[in-house]
């Protein structure tokens, strides 16, 4: 057994010394400065011309709660429509068939190329072009009875979302290694079957973070439907301040609800990501 190594002559023995904690004085300074700024902003708002009693009174008012429910209903349905369209269009875009390919490219071009608010106004005012709609001989209706603010908002938001989602889906499908397609082909799977069984499940892992992003964007984009009289939370908050002129107070109320919803959605996205990341090494990235 060898003796423990000893220090050479002239070197001090450091082994007994304590390691001093480094004082991160720059961090402390930065934190202090940020707190000062936050307190100043907080004080300014507390002392500013805001009647906080209006904020607390309207935060849980019935029309506001109904508004946030309508916001969420619209966001979920429009996103669902967007995802369905997105998947179909992405598959068409990656198909070898030139007709499907160009239809998909045209769709993305049209609906990604015009502003969302313009599309909403078009859907809402569609009856100016087509007073009645229907299937000839079977069923007809006045366009305005069909194209309610709800349906106009759903179509406007959902179809626009589909154009964006198709690109997210296409990216997800492209991220799956080409060898996976070939292997699926080699064991005799058709194109659609390979997509369903092999490619899309693997693509899901990649598309969930951007889809979560898009969904959070959708929650806020529903506020544009206020201009076509869909009674979502901003529309209802506006109606209140049109009557009582408490503009900032009601905008704060609506803002609180959007923040609350997004705060709930963020951890949900994490859970979803974890589920689809099963079987891959980078589980918590």
């Amino acid at each position: 057994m060898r003796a423990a190594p000893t220090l050479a002559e002239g070197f001090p023995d450091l082994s007994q010394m304590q390691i001093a904690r480094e004082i991160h004085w720059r961090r402390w300074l930065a934190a202090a400065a940020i707190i000062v700024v936050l307190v100043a902003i907080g004080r300014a708002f507390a002392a500013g011309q805001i009647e906080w009693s209006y904020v607390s009174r309207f935060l849980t008012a019935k029309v506001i709660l109904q508004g946030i429910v309508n916001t969420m209903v619209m966001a979920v349905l429009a996103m669902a429509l967007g995802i369905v369209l997105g998947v179909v269009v992405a598959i068409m875009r990656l198909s070898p068939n030139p007709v499907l390919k160009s239809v998909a490219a045209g769709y993305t071009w049209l609906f990604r190329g015009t502003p969302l608010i313009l599309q909403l106004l078009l859907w809402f005012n569609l009856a100016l072009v087509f007073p009645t709609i229907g299937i000839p001989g079977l069923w007809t209706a006045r366009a305005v009875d069909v194209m309610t603010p709800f349906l106009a908002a759903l179509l406007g938001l959902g179809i626009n979302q589909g154009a964006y989602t198709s690109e997210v889906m296409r990216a997800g499908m492209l991220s799956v290694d080409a060898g996976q397609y070939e292997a699926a082909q080699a064991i005799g799977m058709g194109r659609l079957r390979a997509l369903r069984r092999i490619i899309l499940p693997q693509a899901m892992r990649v598309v969930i973070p951007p889809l979560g992003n898009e969904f959070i964007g959708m929650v806020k984009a529903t506020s544009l439907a206020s201009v076509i009289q869909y009674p979502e939370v901003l529309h209802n908050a506006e109606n209140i301040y049109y009557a009582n002129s408490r503009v900032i107070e009601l905008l704060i109320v609506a803002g609180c609800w959007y923040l609350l919803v997004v705060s709930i959605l963020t951890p949900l996205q994490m859970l979803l990501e974890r589920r689809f990341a099963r079987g891959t090494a980078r589980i918590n990235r």
Partner: protein
Amino acid sequence: MTRLSLFLGVAAFAATASAQAAELPAEIKQAGTLKLTVNSTYAPMEYRDPATSELVGLDIDLANELARRLSVKIVWSETPFAELIPSLQTKRADFIISGISDRASRRETADFIDYLTTGPQFFVLNEHEAKAAADLCGKKVGTTRSTSFPVEIEKWSKQNCEAAGKPAIQYVPGENSIDVRNQLKQGRIDAAVQGSETLPYAQGQEPGKYRVVGEPFAIGYQGIMFRKDDAVLREVVTEHLAAMIADGSYKKILDKFGLGANAVARPMMNAAPQ
């Protein structure tokens, strides 16, 4: 009331002795500019000329004439109707002349100098069967949701429909007067409401399309809106407005837009009956 009569005295005095005009607030005088904000979706009060895209209208002409007399330039800005009052409060605008009705609910935040008679007016598409306003009970009636009209429709419906045992008017919100007329054309609503002063223009744009139903169902005034603490500016503008009424230049502007009948005899403060 004493304030009003005092004010009327001042106005009458000013009309006869405009040589002794009150001074503009120093800030405006120094800058040489008046900051005014309008919602330009309300022809013929204020709108963008479709051909030239210039800001035109009765309010614009009145304001320009005022500015000429005050020897200041106007810097115009635009905003949605609902943001007019906040624009005044935040001093983005020195005063507001933008087809806004003098309403008691708005007097909490501003003083009005009334300069034009107005009133909410029902109208329908020409082929609609409604003959009198009472025919609209139980029907869908739309108007701009950021105005005072939704409240006035409800009030009228209570007094004239519900009190008579008829079903109430169903109010349908719209974004601005153009949107409301589009809803009317599409059949989303049976009738619409706009200020009576804006209907001749709309009818001129689309001849034979619209028909008014009944008379304006409330009497009111359009007012120039001032901040409560801005009495100096308010009185200077009132003096000049009184002078414009006295020398006929006011009437000339109204006639240009076919609204001579909506003239007032003198500017009045917070005078619209509620």
